């Protein structure tokens, strides 16, 4: 079912398309430390793809490779059927890949609205003159972008804090704003680095709902890293499992759950 480029329909009626992004034999080293060792996997159009693994397995490094923050020493990244040359993070972002960070990277001094608005920078094309005179194209663009941002604010149910400086928000809401900023870019691929880390059960449920809704309503492909196995199994279509920089499992949640290597990595294995 998962082989080849054919699209298929999931049990809940979503259509998963062909391969959108493919990592081929990626190896990433920091000096003598090998963070990622010869890993290959793909992400299909429209799916929710999880990357899991114990601490230090190289999950975040993998996400950083996809988003261009790290450039691997070996291996190739293929996006939409073309090999991607080494790129700067901002170039990757302009290709339609948005991301959030494990430790939240928001513009603390700006309001929620302004933060999400920065996600729309790529849609602002008016010249400086037009912007300076606040006339024609610039005005029209600003209105359109503002509308798009308001929609996201409604979607994430953060209307009441839209003017609040982000620095004053509690952790859970910050995570939500960060998701909003990534969504504002209307990405083809959305990368979420531990979107639910440090949240309580209620907040996790909210976040899960948003992730599913984003995937369902906007058709956004999502790759996420998560520790909470229950959440991962509920959310994702396919799971990559990493341990010590190596891939030890890849498949549907059920397949992964029954994979002996994965069980060993998570529960530990007796050495005798």
């Amino acid at each position, binding site marked *: 079912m998962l082989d080849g480029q054919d699209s298929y329909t999931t049990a809940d009626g979503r259509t998963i398309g062909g391969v959108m992004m493919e990592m081929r034999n990626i190896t990433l080293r920091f000096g003598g430390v090998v963070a990622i060792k010869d890993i290959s996997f793909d992400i299909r159009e429209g799916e929710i793809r999880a990357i899991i693994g114990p601490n230090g397995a190289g999950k975040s490094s993998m996400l950083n490779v996809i*988003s261009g*923050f790290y450039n691997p020493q070996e291996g190739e990244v293929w996006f939409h059927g073309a090999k991607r040359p080494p790129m*700067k*993070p*901002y*170039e990757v*972002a*302009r290709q339609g890949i*948005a*991301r*959030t*960070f494990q430790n939240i*990277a*928001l*513009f*603390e*001094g*700006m309001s929620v609205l*302004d933060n999400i*608005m*920065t*996600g729309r*920078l*790529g849609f*602002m094309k*008016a010249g*400086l003159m037009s*912007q*300076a005179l*606040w006339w024609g194209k610039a005005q029209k663009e600003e209105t359109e972008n503002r509308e798009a941002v308001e929609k996201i604010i409604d979607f994430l149910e953060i209307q009441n804090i839209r003017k609040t400086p982000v620095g004053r928000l509690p952790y859970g809401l910050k995570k939500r704003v960060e998701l909003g*900023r*990534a969504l504002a*870019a209307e990405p083809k691929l959305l990368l979420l680095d531990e979107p639910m880390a440090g949240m309580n059960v209620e907040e996790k449920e909210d976040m899960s709902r948003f992730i599913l809704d984003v995937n369902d309503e906007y058709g956004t492909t999502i790759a996420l890293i998560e520790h909470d196995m229950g959440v991962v199994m509920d959310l994702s279509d396919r799971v990559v499992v990493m341990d010590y920089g190596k891939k030890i499992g890849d498949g549907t949640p059920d397949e992964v759950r029954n994979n002996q290597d994965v069980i060993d990595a998570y529960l530990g294995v007796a050495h005798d």
Partner: protein
Amino acid sequence: MPDQLLFAMEVTLNGLMAGVMYALVALGFVLIFKASGIFNYAQGVMALFAAMTLVGLQDGQVPFSHLINAIFGTDVHHFGWHLPAFVAIIGTVLVMVAFAWAVNQLILKHLVNQEPIILFMATIGLAYFLEGLGDMMWGSDIKKLDVGLPQGINLGIDETTFNWFGYGFFIDNLDIVATVIAALLVTGLVLFSQYTKQGRALRAVADDHQAALSVGISLRFIWVLVWAIAGFVALVAGIMWGTKSGVQFSLSLIALKALPVLMLGGFTSIPGAIVGGLIIGVGEKLFEFLIGPLVGGATENWFAYVLALVFLVFRPQGLFGEKIIERV
């Protein structure tokens, strides 16, 4: 009103306007520090260089004429034209933009992710290089800068006297012009950073580099932009100070006056630079007026620095700076 009080008012007014001039210089520091965390030691020399270039372009001086003449045995000095002030200003702006680009391409690009102290040292080197380059290009003689602004009192008496409350307020014309121009400049900068795409990107970079990258902002472009703006601010400061006291080496030392302003206002705050400038300006004039006679005068030389020292002890982040909280 008693004369003593009116005189104090006059001193305050003059202090405010002197403060505007300090704020102009401090502004350039804040812009670069906010966007890239670099304390740009060369800001003062940039003001000098911009002013020299402006005068050179206006008078149609041949750049590097001494060097050219020494090598080729020629005797060229002037192109023989005299450019209108606004053409020369546009030319100088272009030179400062090119300078911003070159600094990023030749220096900062290679020092990404280095310690702040290393970047600081690089700007010290840059300051001396630029000073030498300026001398070589335009000569080291003291030049008169005239772009149509009222000349400073040091170069010719041209003052305004307002008659309020039956008391003649003496106010330098140039200071009034400087105040208006500084107000326009600050308004322009605020509008730019609040309402344009590039301004938004600039604020984003100033706030968080990583997050800025993730929304598709090129750090290098923003750094060139911010250095170009700082170059423009340096040009404005250079024009004001150059008109006041002539274009000469001492112009680059106004950077030293900007330091206490920054310590007062905070290194990361544009309003802080303005308010800090005003406080220093007024403070040093009033102190000289009230306390000066008791201690033998000349307090203007040290007042700003002592005030900055007091601030460093009790409020190291300045009035408007971000609070320094270290989590354990």
